[in-house]
């Protein structure tokens, strides 16, 4: 099972003054996969990444790549590529010189530097702007160049700390897809940090959900979404209704709630608010006994219901979690 380029966190603990940033944190990042660290602000994602990069030392525990213990290796000797949340291109260097910086440090011959740099820029569709300075680029372009720069040296692991958070929604989705395509194509082991569950579900091979410095659950996006192992995970990833119907406590996703505007025997309620999201519609429903339920329904022309509509609430066929 184990691969010589897997990365391991072994019982890593890190405290800052009184704050425990990571507690007994163990995780395997498999060679070639894109693993996302997902969790609320302050749960230790950045700390884990900085320990992998060598910018922080763990109090206890080890970090390994394959069989090599890199816990005490200085950052410049590790083979880690890093993309930061803030724009980190060297302001005094052109796009191409930024991308080849790491190759210069590794004393790659200058012709090969340029060739490899240009190839990386092609891969992120920036080959037309090689001689620009960073301040002449848009935010999305800067992050794509930063990605090319981090990948140019063919690092063991690519570390991305919320690289999309400074970008607006559309560019964000573009760059996100680009990261996914590129790392898959190059087979780069990637650790991606985000606190955005949608982003995590969309991009990852596996997700590690973190809370207050500990690992809550590690698994594929569908595992995490369909079988959350703790109520924290269930709440944090996706949306949940906690309701009591017919004497049974239920925990259901909004898309499992089916609203029907013809009256049958079942539970009744009234739509109090709606919001349109293009491909789907969200409904806030108040049940007759006062409980609140959120429902999501696929949108087709003419299918929308208005606030004030009386509806019957049913829970879909899919197996739903029972009071996790």
């Amino acid at each position, binding site marked *: 099972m184990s691969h010589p380029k897997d990365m391991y966190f072994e019982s890593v603990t890190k405290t800052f003054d009184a704050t425990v940033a990571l507690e007994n944190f163990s995780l395997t990042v498999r060679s070639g996969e894109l693993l996302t660290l997902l969790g609320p602000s302050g749960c230790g994602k950045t700390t884990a990444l900085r320990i992998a990069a060598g910018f922080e030392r763990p109090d206890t525990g080890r970090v390994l790549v394959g069989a090599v213990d890199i816990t005490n290796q*200085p*950052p410049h000797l590790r083979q880690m*590529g890093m993309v*930061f949340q803030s724009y980190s291109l060297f*302001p005094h260097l052109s796009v191409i010189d930024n991308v080849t*910086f790491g190759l210069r*440090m590794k004393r790659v011959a200058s012709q090969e530097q340029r060739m490899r740099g240009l190839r990386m820029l092609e891969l992120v569709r920036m080959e037309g702007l090689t001689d620009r300075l960073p*301040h002449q680029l848009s*935010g999305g372009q800067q992050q794509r160049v930063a990605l090319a720069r*981090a990948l140019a040296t063919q690092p063991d692991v690519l570390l991305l700390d919320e690289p999309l958070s400074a970008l607006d929604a559309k560019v964000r989705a573009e760059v996100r897809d680009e990261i996914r395509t590129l790392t898959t194509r190059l087979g780069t082991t990637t650790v991606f940090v985000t606190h955005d569950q949608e982003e995590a579900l969309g991009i990852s091979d596996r997700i590690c959900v973190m809370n207050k410095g500990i690992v809550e659950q590690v698994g594929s996006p569908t595992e995490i979404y369909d079988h959350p192992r703790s109520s924290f995970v269930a709440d944090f990833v996706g949306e949940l209704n906690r309701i009591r119907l017919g004497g049974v406590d239920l925990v259901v996703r909004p898309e499992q709630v089916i609203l029907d505007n013809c009256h049958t025997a079942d539970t009744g309620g009234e739509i109090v608010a709606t919001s349109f999201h293009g491909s789907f519609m969200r409904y806030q429903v108040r049940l007759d006994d006062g409980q609140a339920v959120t429902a999501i329904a696929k949108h087709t022309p003419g299918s929308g219901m208005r606030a004030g509509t009386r509806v019957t609430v049913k829970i879909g066929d899919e197996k739903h979690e029972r009071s996790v």
Partner: protein
Amino acid sequence: MATLTNRLKTPLWAWVVITLAAIFFVLPMLAMARFAFQRVPVALLGRNTLFDRWTLDGLVDMFRDPDFRPALWLSLRISVLTVALTLLVMLPTALWVNVQAPRLRSMVETATLLPYVIPPIALVVGAGGAFRDLAPWFLRSDYCLVPFYAVLAMPFTFRSLDTGLRSIDLKTLIEASRSLGAPPTTTLLRVVVPNISSALLGTIFLTITVVLGEFTIASLLLKPTLPLYMSYSQGRNPQGALGLAILLLALTTLLFFAATRLRRRGADRKMIRIGAMP
């Protein structure tokens, strides 16, 4: 919009103050220049003699004076060494404050202001007393001025470097460089220094300005620097001394403006970068 332009317009009284201040500074300088370069006694000055007998002789005599060159060279050597010492000490200090200990900034800033409140005479007497017993050779050397001047320049040099470092995203740039395989010194020389080059130049100019203008300490320690030479040659060649003073004044003013201009340019670059963010 209208109120904004109104507020940006300089009011009349400000112009009056500015003009008065300019007269206060410019008149004595004009008088100085006239005295240095025109051989007409004050009593005979008038409309008819305004353009008579202007000459650079005083200055030329001074350049020919055998004591002049050694004084100039000494001041230049001390300038270079003071710049070197300043960069060696203040750059790491400013880096440390910005990367490791931003919380200590105000403390360090206050410490660098000490030369403002300690009179030079106290500095010399204190240090003199200590070194006379510990290392008597130190005060005998002409170069003993270097550390004093580095300290005197500290209020300017620290601020200049600190401003430069704060105008870039220092921590991220250093970490990006390290993660790309650059060891600490390479990171300093190839990433940090090029991005604070205007602050560095400003620091250098300000240091030279301090060295070329210092009199008290050099005089107390009896070191024949340029300012000291100027003061002594006033009796022998008053016109040459004043001519030189004007030259120095022009030079240091130029350096000072160059330094502030450069610093502003650095700040502009940062504005553009921020502006590029969506």
